[in-house]
Each structure stands twice: as C-alpha cells, then as structure tokens.
C-alpha cells in the first residue's frame, strides 16, 4: 500500500510565497493574541491559586454553584464545566491560595451544598502558593532555555558536521546569556535574546541548515503558544512538557528532509539547479514525512479523545505542534536553507 506515490513531484518551493504569507499571518495573529492577553494564559501552576474539581451525583445549575461561592465570600472565582455534561463535573478556580487555604476545598464544598442542595465529591484539589508558582515558572523557562541550548549545539554540530563551530556557537550563547543575566533580565527576554544571538551566529558562520532548523523551531513553538493564547487555554506544567517534546520531535522531519537535501546537493554542480534539487529532496522524502507524523497523530488522537479531561490540553498541544512541525519542515526550514544557499 502507498499513500504517497513514489513518483510524486510537487513544486513545493514554487508555493513558497503562499507558505510565507500563511506562516506570517499565523505568527502575527499569535503575537497579537499574546499581546492582547498580556502573555500566555498562565494556569495556577505558574501564578498561584487554587483549583478544585468537584462532581455532583445529580444535575445542578451553574448559577447555584456561583451563588454558593459568593455566599462564602469567595471572590475572583471561575466555574467551568469539566468533561462530559452528564458527568456533572466542574472546575472551580480561584486566585486565592493564602486565605482559608487549609481547608478551602471543604469550605467550598459546604458552601455549594447550601445553594445546590447536594454535597459535591471533591475529586481533585490543586493549590499553589505564589512563591511556588514563581519557582515553577522559573524552572519551566530554564527547561525551555536549556533544551533550546543543547538542541542548538547538537544541530549546529550535526547538520554541518562542524563541531568546532558548534563549540563557538555554544560559547557565544553562554557569553551572551551570562552578560545579560548580570543585568537581571527576565527569563522570557533572555530566551528571546539567546535565540537572536543563535541566529546571528549561524548567519555569520554560514551554518545554513542549522539556521533553517532553528527558524522552523521558533516558528513551531511560537504558533503553538499562539493557538493556546487564541483559544484561551491554560498554560500549565504539562503544556511546557508538550512544548519541549514538540521542540525535539518537530526536528525529526526536518532532519530527514535536510539529510536528503545534503545528499542531493553534494552531487550537483551548478547553483541554478538548487530549487529543483530542494524540490526533488522534499518530494523523495514526502511519504516519510507524512507517515511518521501520521502515526504520531493517530496515537495523539486516541489520547485526545479517550484519555480524559486532565490530559486533554496536553494532547491538543502535541497535535498542534506535530501538524505545525510537519508543515514547517517542508515550507519553512527548507526555503530558509535555500535562501541562505543563494546568498552564498
């Protein structure tokens, strides 16, 4: 059986402009949404607060739950249905983590019982103090930073087979980060700065493939974060795990395509033939690119539809990341390498 015909020949790079426009729109919308929402919609893992998951034995009105909460003097709460409607499950979130923290869940359950007439079962309580939230946020950012750093070093060494240059890149990165950390720059800016430095180093050292891979990486992560922001989904610890996995996994397709491009380019002579060579390489690896993503998407869909509410957003982030990552390995990473080739 074959999904992708072996003699497939699509002019992928000919559609470069459409792809650039598409990516650009996605990125602008993502950044726009992040600006409007003042950054990602951090969950209680990162800003602190309390989350209580309750389940009723019968149907209740959401307004009764809300009344119960305001009756016990809880302000700043949100009530949200959780899972299937017939489960009668709700998530209650409040920014409070300090007051009444010792038995907030009990207080909430009792308060709701007064207005709804049924005592809900407390299925899950998550309380994160503000300090812990800050710590977790820092750890998450550090994790993102270090995985980007290590992967950058690996890519520059491996794609270009120039480990010396990869050492230079690593050195430049470390120096830049050290320099910035003296000025107490906040973590997100540090990561952004590190990426800019990385791209600049790749550009000056003419590490074309590494640059293509990193551009695609930034593209994938930015759009995934953007889609979460647009849909107003919570940014929690599992989402960070998903992002890091995407960073690692979305490179798989890129590596396959790049390996083939290099194989084909090495045998070629004239520069004019480059776009055709790139197209040929992408076409030759197309079935691989599609199939590997497809198998991953199959299991992620199983997780998304059957895995339950708690793992839902994680599966969603992965699905988005895998789709965007597959797209970018063809339409972002390769054109960037081609552009760099043309420049010299």
């Amino acid at each position, binding site marked *: 059986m074959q999904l992708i015909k072996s003699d497939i020949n699509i002019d992928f790079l000919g559609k470069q402009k459409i792809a650039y426009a598409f990516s650009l729109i996605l990125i602008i919308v993502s950044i726009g949404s992040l600006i409007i929402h003042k950054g990602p919609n951090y969950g209680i893992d990162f800003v602190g607060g309390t989350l209580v998951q309750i389940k009723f034995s019968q149907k209740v009105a959401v307004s009764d739950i809300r009344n119960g909460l305001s009756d016990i003097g809880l302000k700043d709460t949100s009530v949200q249905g959780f899972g299937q409607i017939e489960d009668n499950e709700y998530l209650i979130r409040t920014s409070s983590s300090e007051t009444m923290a010792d038995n907030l869940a009990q207080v909430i359950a009792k308060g709701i019982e007064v207005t709804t007439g049924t005592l809900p079962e*407390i299925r899950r309580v998550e309380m994160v103090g503000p300090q812990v939230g800050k710590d977790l946020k820092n750890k998450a950012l550090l994790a993102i930073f270090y995985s980007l750093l290590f992967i950058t070093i690996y890519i520059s060494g491996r794609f270009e087979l120039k480990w010396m240059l990869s050492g230079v890149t690593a050195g430049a990165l470390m120096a830049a980060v050290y320099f910035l950390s003296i000025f107490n720059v906040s973590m997100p800016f540090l990561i952004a700065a590190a990426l800019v430095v990385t791209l600049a180093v790749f550009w000056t050292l003419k590490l074309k493939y590494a640059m293509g891979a990193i551009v695609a990486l930034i593209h994938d992560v930015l759009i995934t974060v953007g889609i979460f922001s647009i849909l107003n989904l919570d940014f929690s*610890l599992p989402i960070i*795990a998903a992002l890091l996995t995407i960073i690692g996994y979305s490179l798989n397709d890129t*590596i396959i395509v790049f390996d083939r491009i290099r194989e084909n380019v090495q045998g070629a002579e004239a520069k004019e033939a480059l776009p055709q060579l790139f197209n040929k390489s992408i076409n*030759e690896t197309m*079935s691989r690119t599609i199939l590997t993503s497809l198998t991953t998407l199959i299991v992620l869909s199983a997780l998304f539809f059957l895995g339950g509410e708690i793992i839902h957003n994680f599966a969603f982030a992965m699905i988005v990341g895998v789709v965007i990552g597959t797209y970018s390995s063809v339409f972002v990473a390769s054109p960037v390498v081609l552009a760099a080739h043309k420049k010299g």
Partner: protein
Amino acid sequence: MKHFTFRRLFILGIIVAAIICLIPTFFNTWPHKKINLGLDLQGGMHLVLEVQNEKAVEAEIERTVHELKKELRAEGIKHLGISRHKDNTIEAKLQGEESKKGFEKIISEQFANLIIPSPKTIADGFSFTLSLPDEERDRIKKMATEQALETIRNRIDEFGVSEPDIRMQGDDRILIQLPGITDPERAKDLIGKTAQLTFQIVNDDADVANAMKGNPPVGSEILFQNKRDPSTGNVTKIPFLIKQQVLLDGSLLIDARIEFDQFQQPQIGIEFNRKGARIFDRITGENVQKRLAIVLDKTVYSAPVIQDRIAGGKARITGRFTTEEAKDLAIALRAGSLPAPVKIIEERTVGPTLGADSVRMGLLSMVAGGALIILFMMVYYKGAGLIADLALVVNIVLIGGGLAAFGATLTLPGIAGIILTIGMAVDANVIIYERIREELRSGKTALAAVHAGFERATLTILDANVTTLIAAIVLFQFGTGPIRGFALTLGFGIIASLFTALMLSKSIFDLLLRNKKTSTLSI
C-alpha cells in the same frame, strides 16, 4: 549457518531481562522492584510545607532576652529595659558606668554567642544592640527545618499512612507525599498543627474587658478560648488575660493519650517526665487558688483553679473535642511540637475515584492507539509491518521493564509518554521501510535493499531521536512529580525504539532473508 550469533543472544538477553524486571509488578516475586503508581493515578496528597523558621530565631532571641534579664536580676544590675526588635536583635538600655561594666561582664562570660558592638550613648545612659551571628541564625533555621521534618514524620507514622514520602526540599521546605489517603483535611490539620503546649497563669489582678479596650498590662496578653455550642455549632470566643511567662511547656511530656470522662467526653491525659513533674509540682504549689491556663497554639483550652499542689506530673486537657480531634491532638503532643509554624505552600490532592478513572482512560487510549498503529502498519507494510508490530510490542515491554528496574513511578503524563512512544517508535521503522522501498525501486535485490535501507537510515534515525532525547533529559532534570514521569517514559521509549528498530528489526530481517533465500520482500 549459525543461529545464535552474539548479536542475537544480546537482543534476546535484553528482552528476557526486561520481562523478568516486569514480573514483580504483577506477581510478588524476585527482584521485588515494581512500577509504582503516582499520586495522580492511585489518589493521594502531595504537600509542600514552608517552615517559617524565622520564628525559631525569634523564639531563640526571646529566650535569650528572658535569660539575660534573669542573670541581671541575680547579679543585682539595674537596667532601663531589654527588648527584642522586629529584626531579631536585642536592645538593652543601661544607666551608669557601673551597670554598664557589670552588663558587659555577664554578656562576655555567659552570652558569648552574641555579637556585641560597642554601646551607643543615649539620653539617660547606654544602649547595646546585640544580635546573633549569621551562621548562628542559619544553624537555628536549619535545625528548625530538620526538627520539623522529624516531628512531622513521627506524626504521620502514628497517624498510619502506608509508604509516605517525606523529605526536605531546599532550606526551608518539606515535601510530603501521602498515597491513598482518605481524609486529606484531617491529615493536613495534624501535619500543620504547631502543637505548642504551654501552662501559664491567668492574670486575675486586671480586668479583661478593660484590657480588651486598650493595652493589656505589661507582661500579660489576651488569648481566647473557643466554646462551641453543641446544639447550634456556633463558636464563641471567650477572652482570657494570661501572663506571658511560660511556666511549663510540652517539651517535658512523656505521654499524651485520649481518655474519656464520666460523660464519655473525650479528653487528653498528659504525663510529664520527672523534671516536668517537679516543675508542675512547684508551680501548682506556688499558685494555689489561682487559675492555671492550659494553652495550645495560642488558644486557651481550659483554665481550672488550682485547688492544691499537684504531685506526680499528670494533667488533663479538656475542651469539647470530638474523638478524632482528641486522638490527633494526642498524636501531635506525643510527637512533639513543631519548632516553628509551617505553612502549606503547595497542595495537590487527587481523590481515589479520579485516580481510578485516569488509569482506566489512560489504558484505554493506550490500547486504542496501539491497536490502530498495529493495524496501520500491517495494512501498509504487510509482512514488514508485522515485524514492526512485533518490535512495537517488545518496545512497550522494554519501557515497562526499564521503569520497574529503576523502581520508577508511573503517572498520567507518564502513560501519555508511553502512548506517544507507540506513535514515535514505528517512525523508525517507517523511515527504514521507505528507504528499502526506494532501494527496491532502483532495482536492488531484497537482501541488498534491506541492507542499504538500514545502513542509510540508521544515522537519520539516531539524529532524529537524539533531539527528542535531549528534550526528555532536560524535562527530567527540571520537571516535578508527574512531568518527571512523562520525561522518564519518553526517554525510555526513545532508547527502546532505537534498540527495537536498529537491532531487533534488523536481526529479524537478516534471519528471514538468509534462511529462506527469498528474493521477494513483503513490504
């Protein structure tokens, strides 16, 4: 033709080892290391406490102030006031050269651990600002955390939780994991109780109502007793004017147990050691006809009038407890008081029903995803697909064996990691098979195509997996709890899939092609 080459034996050995590691998870056999379920799957409570150990420093300073006053009194040196400042320094004011000399002598001889700067001249004498050296402060803080950890461990042991995990996290945090706990609120109450028991005299010389309005008399403070009306459940607070001097505290207890009075009301019987009994004997003797307040965590429990000197060192704490409250209080008193109050700064509790749901749904999506992949590979690659499917099953066994061998914890994100691995493990096979198909199309024989396919795809597969492995390692390093579980299964999954794709599948192909000498390939 040798069937058992070194490579094949190695592959077989790995698989057998994984199976042996996996067996104890299902049956209780050697090697007895099994996969544990995380709190999010079996239900339980995860707590992070912050020990407010600055309070321990505060207590130490208070104690020093108290002793300093006592020493000065004993030596007959007059002072204009010795007090603790908010920044935990001691200010001592003295009048006249002579008392200054005497003070300096006492300080240097008996309070050598304090930093003593030269005195400042103030309007009516001299002022000393004494402080603890930083190392001393740090030592007190560290000890407070360690002691709190030990005390909490004792309380939890007595409470009866199977396999609790209690450990220090950083300088002032304690991590507590209580799997399968059924009453999280009660456990939190017990863990968080400071259980500071003190005996203090009620100040009956001044009027409580008067003290409530303005400043209470020097050396006294207002503490409350909570009286619960059994019929309405309403709590009223009754103020007491209590002398601040602590005559006796819970550190000299040797026993605390729940008892019942003649009305079957639970109460707590406490017993002091010999030193405590002697002190108790003396203070009751000195304060006959006065009221002795039994104060626990700044709340008055009872304040009976002392009728007579009490020898033997036994006392009772009464106060409308429920049986559970009394039982937990007795545990807390027996285990000792916390050296400083603790605050819960992180809590994650998962009820047992939710945990069971998560296990069920996690397994369901794993089986569904796995079945879909196996079917897909079979349809798409036929015979070669079957080999990939076999490799996939071995892959999952290897992940399980790896988790068990490390005594690792399986969490819900961990299950997600395994599911993800199922999808990614066959990627390696896909890359190899597509390459083989390509080689076949270019006219190679089956054997040559297989060889070229594996050879050319190996480096690509290694590279593609290294980047994901980097992400998994970083996640493991920085992640907490469930996320670590994900990083672990993802990492094991990547290593296992490298093994199954590059070694196991290749061996099977070799075996099939060489034995049958076939020239066709089902791929």
